[in-house]
């Protein structure tokens, strides 16, 4: 298979403009003859569904939640980047492009990233016009802040709830099109398969989660906007319902999966408190602007936060400040995370589990006063106290890294189309823009860029080329076959009646992934993980216990289907991590380090996108490589010393 990224010719800054002109248009009177399916209603899905409906296409939108407003985009806190240069501090489209490519450790496509930086400015305009209440200054203009160690202030924000406000903006645009009759919304509905005939995506199979009804929906194109797969780790900052099922079904129907091992671990999460833990809560990394990270110099098992104050300065190790004097506590997410893990591996972790490090505000409170710290971080401190019961004004916080975002996803070309014609992937569900590591405040930007400003152009080209008559009805045998496959799988899950709950399997998978395919990975560990996952998957299909029937609201059945897919994805992530024996971005291979123990990239061997092709159940997948070409940036090794 030849992977064609369809990157337009010409100078970087002109590619998108020229490409837009070269794309075919659909006659306005014909747009109403086309149907488009959008799966997922987060930032990418809601913005795409609304924008396509505004153009005149008939859209069907699906979400598993009870309302599109619940999508997990809502939980993003920090902000959204845009190259507006409102601060006159030297920002530009090229600088945002450069920072994103470099931040991704040179494993993303130049053309995609430059387009992202270009449309970033339009996103802010669009959201303001929708009535999104961004933070403002006293003069009435928009406020910005520097985020995630960026040298310029290009992040727009709405207190600590930027994701919520942006999602509600996209949700309102979607609502308007629902009321206009151009979008038909299906809530509490899960996509369980995609239907492909003559090599083109033709529709999807869904399950109504209230009645259990399995249904077919046909369309001219299918857009997968279902977010990332962090929940393969069981514990992550994702919502409980986030899953890979839609993307994985697409993968099994022929869509390649790009860079599955690229996951982002966020350093400032609230540590696990016990075996009952069901998810992890992230606290904005802005905390590292004033908080100092430390552990005791020598191991003190079970050290509590309130006793930390008694440890003299000389016996503390501010390890980030010690190892990275110029960046200190503000080193990138992956570096901060890895060093915290290392300290805990050395037995110097704190708290009841030993899996935590301190984040200490004592000096900041002494320097700036409690009031200033309260004004900056009050809501985060409250949240911390709510969850842990400890008061961070009086004793240091305890933090530990957690899985937060997945840069990998369905492989797409420049038009956001997978290698299956008519099947698209937008937002976190695709692999495209963040390379091996995503910058802070860039996830919201990418989701909305794809939905508002890329897909309305690129989808039109495909639809104009195939013509409105190129559609198959749900009575086509391919739909019947897919529908039967979905029903059989559900019946199989219900018939096993084994001894272990779905959550038990999910937790075991998560522990394996975290241990061997988490913050640092080695050939030996990955091989162990592969075997464990295979065994766990075999056990799942013979020993899982799913009660109840299909014809009712059955949350265990929903979870079982998702965990079954995670059990397959997990192995692919391990395979990908094994193949990529370099370290880059969030992917750290212990075999590939500099003499100082930092990540060592190997550009001569691995400057490519790893795109995996499904070969059948329990068969090894085939690797395809898309070589990455860098014409506008020079590849450099990161250094934060």
């Amino acid at each position, binding site marked *: 298979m030849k992977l064609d990224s369809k990157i337009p010719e010409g100078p970087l800054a002109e590619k998108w403009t020229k490409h837009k002109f070269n794309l075919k248009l659909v006659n306005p009177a014909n747009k109403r003859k086309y149907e488009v399916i959008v799966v997922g209603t987060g930032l990418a899905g809601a*913005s795409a569904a*609304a*924008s396509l409906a*505004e153009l005149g296409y008939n859209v069907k939108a699906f979400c598993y*939640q*009870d*309302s599109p*407003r*619940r*999508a*997990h985009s*809502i*939980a993003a806190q920090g902000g959204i980047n845009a190259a*507006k240069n*409102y601060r006159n501090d030297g920002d530009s489209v090229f600088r945002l492009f450069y920072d994103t490519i470099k931040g991704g450790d040179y494993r993303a496509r130049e053309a995609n990233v430059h387009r992202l930086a270009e449309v970033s400015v*339009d996103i802010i*305009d*669009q959201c*303001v*016009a*929708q*009535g999104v*209440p*961004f933070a*403002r200054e006293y003069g*009435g*203009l*928009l406020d910005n802040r520097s985020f995630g160690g960026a040298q310029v202030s290009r992040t727009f924000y*709405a207190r600590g*709830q930027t994701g*919520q*406000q942006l999602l509600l903006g996209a949700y*309102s645009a979607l*609502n308007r099109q*629902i*009321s206009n009759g151009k979008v038909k919304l299906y*809530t509490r509905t899960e996509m369980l398969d995609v239907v492909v005939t003559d090599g083109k995506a033709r529709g999807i199979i869904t399950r109504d989660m209230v009645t259990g009804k399995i249904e077919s929906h046909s369309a001219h194109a299918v857009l997968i906007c279902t977010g990332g797969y962090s929940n393969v780790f069981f514990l992550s*900052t994702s*919502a*409980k319902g986030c899953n890979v099922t839609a993307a994985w079904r697409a993968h099994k129907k022929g869509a390649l999966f790009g860079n599955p091992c690229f996951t982002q671990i966020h350093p400032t999460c609230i540590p696990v*408190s*016990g075996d*009952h*833990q*069901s998810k992890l*809560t*992230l606290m904005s990394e802005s905390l590292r602007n004033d908080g100092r990270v430390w552990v005791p110099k020598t191991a003190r098992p079970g050290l509590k936060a309130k006793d930390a104050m008694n440890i003299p300065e000389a016996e503390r190790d501010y390890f980030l400040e010690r190892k990275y004097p110029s960046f200190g506590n503000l080193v990138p997410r992956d570096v901060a995370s890895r060093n915290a893990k290392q300290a805990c591996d050395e037995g110097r972790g704190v708290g009841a589990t030993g899996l935590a490090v301190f984040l200490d505000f004592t000096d900041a409170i002494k320097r700036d006063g409690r009031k200033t710290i309260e004004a900056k971080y009050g809501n985060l401190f409250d949240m911390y106290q709510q*969850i*842990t*019961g400890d008061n961070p004004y009086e004793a240091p916080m305890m933090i530990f890294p957690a899985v937060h975002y997945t840069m990998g996803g369905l492989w797409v070309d420049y038009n956001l189309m997978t290698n299956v014609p008519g099947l698209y992937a937008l937002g976190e569900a695709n692999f495209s823009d963040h390379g091996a590591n995503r910058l802070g405040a860039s996830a919201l930007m990418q989701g909305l860029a794809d939905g*508002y*400003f890329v897909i309305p152009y690129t989808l039109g080209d495909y639809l104009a080329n195939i013509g409105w008559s190129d559609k198959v009805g749900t009575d086509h045998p391919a739909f019947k076959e897919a529908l039967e496959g979905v029903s059989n799988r559900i019946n199989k899950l219900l018939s096993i009646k084994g001894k272990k*709950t779905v959550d*038990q399997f999910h937790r075991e998978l998560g522990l394996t992934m975290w241990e061997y395919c988490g913050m640092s990975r080695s050939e030996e560990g990955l091989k162990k993980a592969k075997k464990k996952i295979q065994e766990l998957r075999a056990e799942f299909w013979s020993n899982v*216990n799913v*009660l109840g029937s299909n014809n*009712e*609201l059955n*949350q*265990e059945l929903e979870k079982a289907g998702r965990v079954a897919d995670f059990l397959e994805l997990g192995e692919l992530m391990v395979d990908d991590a094994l193949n990529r024996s370099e370290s880059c971005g969030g992917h750290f291979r212990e075999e590939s380090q500099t003499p100082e123990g930092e990540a060592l990239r190997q550009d001569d061997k691995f400057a490519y996108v790893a795109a995996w092709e499904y070969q059948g159940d329990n068969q090894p997948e085939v690797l395809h490589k898309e070589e990455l070409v860098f014409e506008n940036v020079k590849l450099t090794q990161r250094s934060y010393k």
Partner: protein
Amino acid sequence: MKVTLKVWRQKDAKTKGAFATYPLDHVSTDMSFLEMLDVLNSSLIQKGEDPIHFDHDCREGICGMCSLYINGRPHGPLQTTVCQLHMRTFHDGETITIEPWRAKAFPVIKDLVVDRSAFDRIQQSGGYVSVNTGGVPDANAIPIPKKIADEAFDAATCIGCGACVAACKNASAMLFVSAKVSQFALLPQGKPERKERVEKMVAQMDAEGFGSCTNTKACEAECPKGISVTNIARMNREYFAASLSSYEVPLKGSGD
């Protein structure tokens, strides 16, 4: 710690429900309320009993999906979402009663899961600014005083959980609807449609079967995001002004 749970069980919308009692041992004070239910569910499954169904998703207090009525209060004793409630709030040996949101407009789907699609339909009736993607002015073209922007933001933080309705003896949705009406009435972007918007949203709210507001302020007291009842007052003003003056200009037919 040890707790006894009295939980509303209801097979589906049509079947009559009843309370079931579950004793639960070895509850950690660090568990969130929902994690405590996870533990109970896991033991129910091991015994071959149908687990308790409840809505939840983000478990960090922002998606608005969780919706439990605990000891007679929506989201329980604290002014947070139930996913942010921890077992340390309860005492050893306590009996905890868990019910679904109770309102005619929120029919029960199963156990503690209710249908809140009425909220979506209210938003669809007018909770938006009619702009298409593209062709909008620069974000800084219209300055908005910080005070106004902040007030609009306060209203916009509503998570649509429905605690206001569950808290209200009339099952009124006024706080929810007024939060959106306020956000757009305050911002210049919402001004062109403000009259039609409030009329349409109130009409839809009434059509969904929500009750009237009698100013008990129970909604504000229970709202996990602290949405203020001043929004209801603003919505009443908007509605009154709209009813006096909207559609003053008759819509012209296409023949003119």
